[in-house]
């Protein structure tokens, strides 16, 4: 057994663990955070995806000890403390991007990681960015829409902050509209490129 210390969903933790314990099993069994799921044995499906120091990782392919000293965020830690859904979670619901829900926590965390790297992806970039997260229910159609919608919402929120600082709320709505038009155009571009 060995001791590891790190942060999980903002909480400082210190646990004695077996060196071979996978991060996903630590999160599920030791922390009781069971949103991340195990869907394969080969790092193929991404159902276990969490954020480690802000980047998405597959927690089935990381030893818990490797996370020592870092910050882990799971789907349970994504919504605001008052329960308000994260924009990505909201977009997944709005666009019906989940059915059975098994891939969902991993898919959501992968999306958060993807948008952190590329805030305004095209449809093709979304598809490539989520290639390592498998879903059997949705055919990916609505997941892609949700990711684009979340990106658009984040962009318009950012634009909105800037605009409202400069010119009040009217500009904000216009910027929001522009952002969603741009997003729709890039989505169409992605399709045509196939």
């Amino acid at each position: 057994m060995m001791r590891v210390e790190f942060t999980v969903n903002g909480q400082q933790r210190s646990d004695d663990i077996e060196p071979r314990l996978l991060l996903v099993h630590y999160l599920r069994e030791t922390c009781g955070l069971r949103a991340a799921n195990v869907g394969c044995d080969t790092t193929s499906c991404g159902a276990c995806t969490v954020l480690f120091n802000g980047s998405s990782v597959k927690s089935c392919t990381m030893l818990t000890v490797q996370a020592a000293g870092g910050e882990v965020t799971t789907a349970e830690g994504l919504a605001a403390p008052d329960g308000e859904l994260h924009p990505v979670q909201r977009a997944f619901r709005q666009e019906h991007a989940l059915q059975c829900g098994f891939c969902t926590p991993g898919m959501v965390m992968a999306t958060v990681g993807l948008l952190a790297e590329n805030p305004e992806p095209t449809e093709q970039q979304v598809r490539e960015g989520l290639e390592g997260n498998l879903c059997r229910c949705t055919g990916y159609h609505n997941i892609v829409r949700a990711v684009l919608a979340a990106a658009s919402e984040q962009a318009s929120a950012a634009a909105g902050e800037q605009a409202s600082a400069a010119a009040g709320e009217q500009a904000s709505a216009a910027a929001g509209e522009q952002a969603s038009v741009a997003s729709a155009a890039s989505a169409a571009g992605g399709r045509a490129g196939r």
Partner: protein
Amino acid sequence: MSILGTRVLRIEDPRFLTSGGVYTEDIVDDRLLGACHVFFVRSPIAHARIGGIDPSQAAAAPGVLAVFTAADLADLPDIGPMMPGLLNERMRRHLLAPDVVRHVGDPVAVVVTEEPYQGEDAVELVDVDYQPLPAVVDLAAAASDEVVLFEAAGTNVAASFGDPATLDEHLFDGCDAVVRHTIMNQRVAPAPMETRAGAAAWGHDGRLTAWIPNQGAQGTRASLASMLGLAPEQVRVITPDVGGAFGAKFGADPEHAVVAWVARQLGRPARWTETRYENLIAMTHGRAQQQTVTIGGSRDGTVQAYRLEILQDAGAYPRIGAILPFLTILMTPGPYALGKAEAIARTVVTTTTPLGAYRGAGRPEATAAVERAMDLFAAEIGMDPADVRRRNLLPPFTEPHRTAFGALYDSGDYAAALDKALAAADYAGLRKEQAGRRERGDAVQLGIGLSCYVEITGMGDGEESPPEENATVEVHPDGSATILTGTSPHGQGHATAWAMLASDRLGIPVDRITLSWGDTDLVPEGGGTGGSRSLQQGGMAVQQAADELIELARLRAAAALEASAADLVFDTGRSAFAVAGDPAAFVPLAQLAEAERLLVRTVFSAPGATFPFGTHVAVVEVDTETGKVTLRQMVTVDDAGFVLNPLLAEGQRHGGIAQGAAQALLEEFVYDAEGNPLTASLADYPFLSSTEVPSFSLVDMATPTSYNPMGVKGIGEAGTIGATPAVQNAVVDAVAHLGVRHIDMPASPQRVWRALQAAAGSGRSTPQASTAAGSGRSTSQASTAAGSGGSTPQASAARSEGA
């Protein structure tokens, strides 16, 4: 405005998005405290006699509580095939193989440990002496009975549907052109994201509680009880959230019974979650049907005769997959008036993973066969595939139409679906683009594939065993409502859909309506979710229960308001009864539940199955230098009658289309000649990913059925039924001008490239005078075909004979 038909967001989503679903492995329950963990020792050899099992090393490993083999389970009954009348009853199995293993993955022992990691270590230590027997993988080899899997049966034939001797040898007499081809509808893995799992605890009363991800708790309880030799009342099945099923989680599997047996034997609760490797070799597979189609007709495009001969792979033990040819045969003619048609099937066992249901279950196979045949025929006579289809589709009908195969199609307008799909895809424009690429000799060619389908949903015979489902609706004094259903959601969104149905009638907001299912103590009866039956039977039961509840409440309201029941109107806006003409005199529904429970249980019974239909258009690009196929566009018309919630219905279509396209382009579960699985991980099995499909274009069409008050049919399986042949046809179409007539699925780059090489090698530029080769029945005139648009559709008549 009614909530019905609107895009209500799912009420189940916030939980899935934040804390995640509670799947079987996630269950935290007092009854499972101190549970031990069960691990299966599975055969690594396809076919072998078990010389002996030495568990001593495993038994001594850290944390191991026990190792059990078939000898320990001798008190349990052996298992015969379901539907004994249809399947060979001498093909029996045990929960753990006692003497012979018949596929890689066949369980021979279990190791039970304190902690999961200990079990993963200890299964490796069980020493099994396997004495290899010859594997039987090839279907023809299985049918030859040279090596027989079940000595007691004396044959590998598990079932026969129709007698080959009764086939009409003159079926194709008088046809101008006849094409015959053998097509493999390949084996695929359902691979739901959640693998199989189970948990079991025995109460002091000797009753078993089992948590199992399933598609219908009641059927699961029946099969679990039967495997354990118990009466159903002694078993309670609880259904946690289910991470996808696709037909493969109907009923209980032998592993679930073993887990329950272990829990009883050790006197403590037991849990099991399989690995993905186990899932891919031991959960039932789908499809695996070899089809020989023969199609003949006149040069004007009229199909005069069609024959479908099926050889179905059952895998090692006959399960549901063994009888699915029955459904394929039922749907043989699809949406067409085919003149004369006949179909027969035989099911054989092989030393491979058993076959079960997979999204569509028998119907995608029927559609694939007839749609491939339509294209083969179109190519043979040099006619546009859309024109050939239009010429042979049944005319629109509103009164039920009985086919020669006994199916009673309830309502349909197949040509309208075809026309809508062609218009939405700009079929003429696509053909123009294709012609341009062909003319230029582009390396990347365009293919357009069609599939017209009709399928059967909500199965059941109207007269003998009408399809039915129960529901209970209760309104509570706090104004909320609960629904119990015999259906069993696993991603479809029943909680939202059923709440919409009740809300529409009761005037209670959807987020105050809670749905329960899947606990056999709570809902002892029910048919579960499968065969796209939920809405048309389970949903209709909810609506009927809500209607009946209103009538029950009306009587109470009359007493409360001292008015005649006939003078009361139910105001959904207030969820209250009011006296007509005196809106101030009213009583809320909730108040009527105060003195006495306000609850109705009802059973909805349908006159029969319904038959959704549609047309899919697939557009692919094929790189003729590498054989790589890119799916560019999917346009689908899927008519399932009235749509309760477009958001949910579209989700079902998307998922099905993707799975259908996956079978056409990527997925195949492969064995080598010794029966070793070559695709037993998600690194090897080409599970569809987000980069391999485009976004889909869905076209609306709604032809109601008269079989239920809302006019709804099933939508869950339309995607896999329509998309697979459309995509496959598109791939062939892309290279048809180069002399290719058929490419088996999945259309991998290798297969496409080989087909191109074979076509080039056979001299495509000189149309051969086709004699419809081996069928020897008719002569199709090369000159006619060669004249049609400069292509050479006659080039491969010889190859079309079972290449």
